[in-house]
């Protein structure tokens, strides 16, 4: 390893050192090892380790019930891990939950501000709880930035999904946190609002804020600096989006043509085919063994009904591949 090499983080514009296992960096905002959480006999999070550097946007992906929310809750002190240790913002996640809470902005999956308080009252409450200096000014500025100044007396419960999300994010940012934990923040939000949301996340990360965000959207995953894929409580992959696609070793063929449904049905039983996924008018056929896949698909290539193109697997292909290979410990 060449120690002189420094990669430039495009978002922060700051030089960051490459990861080195021997020499832990001081700039890790989250550094946890072996986190485990059990509910009864069920292990929801199993031996989870992660390291998130300052200014990074870290994406958390995984199927429903894979332990994303539980992990996030353990990181901000809402849940006590059954095993494991580590630090968040330099504080022990077991003993210093209070200090962590002061510097973390946590946006819950479900809207958790008070629906029977007005927009301004909600912000004022949060600002008071965090003892934000210059409270009135900060709240006014936040309302102005959100474009909600004229609607400040409107009840939060009457806002639409997109506005609720914007308000919740604004509330998380009131106390100027160093780390943002976002639990599926854009679920049920329209594409434009999602785009704006992510632009803001990137602006914040550029200013040095670290963001850990869980999502089910592939376009959002691609906007993260680094991704962690969790399934059934286990961390299955941890890399950049490009690396994940490369490491997957998947070969993907895309087929277009008529009666794709019938094609998909027959391909599912063919050796070497790991996944057959319809994407609108195309069918993605992937397998880990390129040679075997090509051999198996050969008879289909000759059929005039279909047009075949070899493509780079999409992130979604990679994740569905990961999901299929993981054993479901809930069954």
């Amino acid at each position, binding site marked *: 390893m060449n120690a002189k090499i420094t990669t430039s983080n495009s978002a922060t514009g700051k030089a960051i050192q490459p990861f080195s296992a021997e020499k832990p960096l001081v700039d890790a905002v989250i550094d946890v090892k072996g986190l485990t959480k059990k509910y009864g006999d069920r292990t929801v999070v199993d031996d989870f380790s992660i390291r998130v550097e300052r200014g990074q946007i870290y994406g958390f992906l995984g199927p429903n019930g894979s332990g994303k929310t539980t992990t996030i809750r353990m990181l901000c002190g809402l*849940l006590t891990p059954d095993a494991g240790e580590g630090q968040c913002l330099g504080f022990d996640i077991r003993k210093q939950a209070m200090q962590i809470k002061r510097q973390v902005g946590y946006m819950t999956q479900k*809207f*958790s501000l008070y629906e029977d308080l007005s927009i301004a009252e909600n912000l004022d409450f949060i600002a008071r709880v965090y003892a934000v200096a210059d409270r009135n000014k900060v709240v006014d500025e936040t309302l102005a930035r959100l474009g909600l100044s004229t609607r400040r007396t409107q009840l939060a419960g009457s806002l639409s999904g997109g506005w609720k999300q914007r308000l919740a994010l604004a509330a998380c940012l009131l106390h100027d946190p160093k780390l943002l934990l976002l639990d599926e923040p854009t679920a049920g939000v329209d594409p434009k609002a999602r785009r704006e949301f992510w632009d803001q996340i990137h602006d914040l990360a550029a200013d040095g804020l670290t963001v850990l965000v869980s999502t089910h959207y592939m376009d959002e995953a691609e906007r993260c600096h680094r991704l962690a894929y969790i399934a059934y409580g286990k961390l299955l992959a941890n890399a950049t989006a490009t690396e994940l696609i490369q490491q997957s070793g998947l070969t993907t063929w895309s087929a277009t043509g008529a009666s794709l449904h019938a094609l998909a049905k027959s391909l599912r039983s063919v050796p070497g085919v790991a996944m057959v996924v319809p994407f609108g008018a195309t069918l993605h056929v992937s397998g880990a063994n390129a040679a075997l896949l090509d051999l198996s698909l050969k008879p289909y290539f000759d059929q005039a009904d279909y047009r075949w193109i070899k493509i780079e697997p999409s992130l979604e292909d990679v994740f569905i591949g990961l999901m299929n290979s993981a054993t479901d410990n809930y069954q």
Partner: protein
Amino acid sequence: MSASSILSMPGGLFSWHRFVAVLLKEFVQMKRDRLTFGMIVGVPIIQLVLFGFAINTDPKGLPAAVVINDESPFSRALVRGLENSQYFKFTHRAASEAEADRLLKLGEVQFVLVIPADFSRQLQRGERPSLLMAADATDPSATGNALATVNQTIKQVMDRELTGTLATLKSVELPIDLRIQRRYNPEGITRYNIVPGLMGVILTMTMIMMTSLAMTRERERGTMENLLATPVRPIEVMAGKIAPFIMVGYAQVTIILIAAKLIFGVPIVGGLLLLSLALIVFIAANLSVGFTFSTIAKNQLQAMQMTFFFFLPSMLLSGFMFPFRGMPDWAQVLGEVLPLTHFLRIVRGILLKGNGFADIVPELWPIGLFMLVAGTVAMRRYRQTLD
């Protein structure tokens, strides 16, 4: 095809299948909610036990003090005769009338019997000596039956005691001038007792219910997670949630006091400042109970049920509805634990008897102790995590 097929036709007015679907779902949900299930069984049992065993509207063995200024066989016969009537139990022998009055004021005894000096001499001379029986009539129903029997009991004693030459004194008229004083409520007006008592009952009900809903609402609406993620500490949440209800409590008390004075004409003898001091402790005790419930209840319905579970014995065992001293010992012990029992004594003492601070201390500290215990449980139960 049976006749029911018309009813169970799809899209008909009443579908048997849809009805059964809802019915089964309700049973499954009822079975899931253990607390509700417990209430269905628990409430009838509690009511049966309380009404069947604990409640007695004809209290006997009521504590009484006697002031004997004339040591004589007649005096002893009187005391013994009253005790034999089973309504009275002379627990104190006071040296003076003033001391006996103080016992009455503190609620240590419910009756004071004063046998004047020269009692037996006057009796033997047929001068109809006066005999004073003073009763604490703040709760007329608690003393009513006992007082009603006094005349008859004394007549029986006299018939037995006046023998020989004295037998001539036996007449249709009682050879004694029996004076019964109903203290603090001379006319025996029930509402003088009920209205101040209602203050405690209303506060118990509303304070516990409102606080028990306060935390459960946060949990049910999902705002709890956000609250827990902030640096707010449990004590801050608890104090912040309880303080507004203390004000609500005072507003209720003000309404009740105004109504008591203007509509019901309840005499307000004691100091209202002292009453407000006692109120703080009482309200805080109830709020701690409510807060404890809210940390246990999973939803608002459970919180309401727990409130009811606490409220029912409070109503029945505190002496609000039925005479406290009429209950068996085990029920009295249970009653003594409840804050309402002590608060009723305080509020009646202050409003009707004009009790001062020193007089209410024996009733105030048990409420304070209850508050401390309930508050500690609440703080321990309130978790800063979602575990």
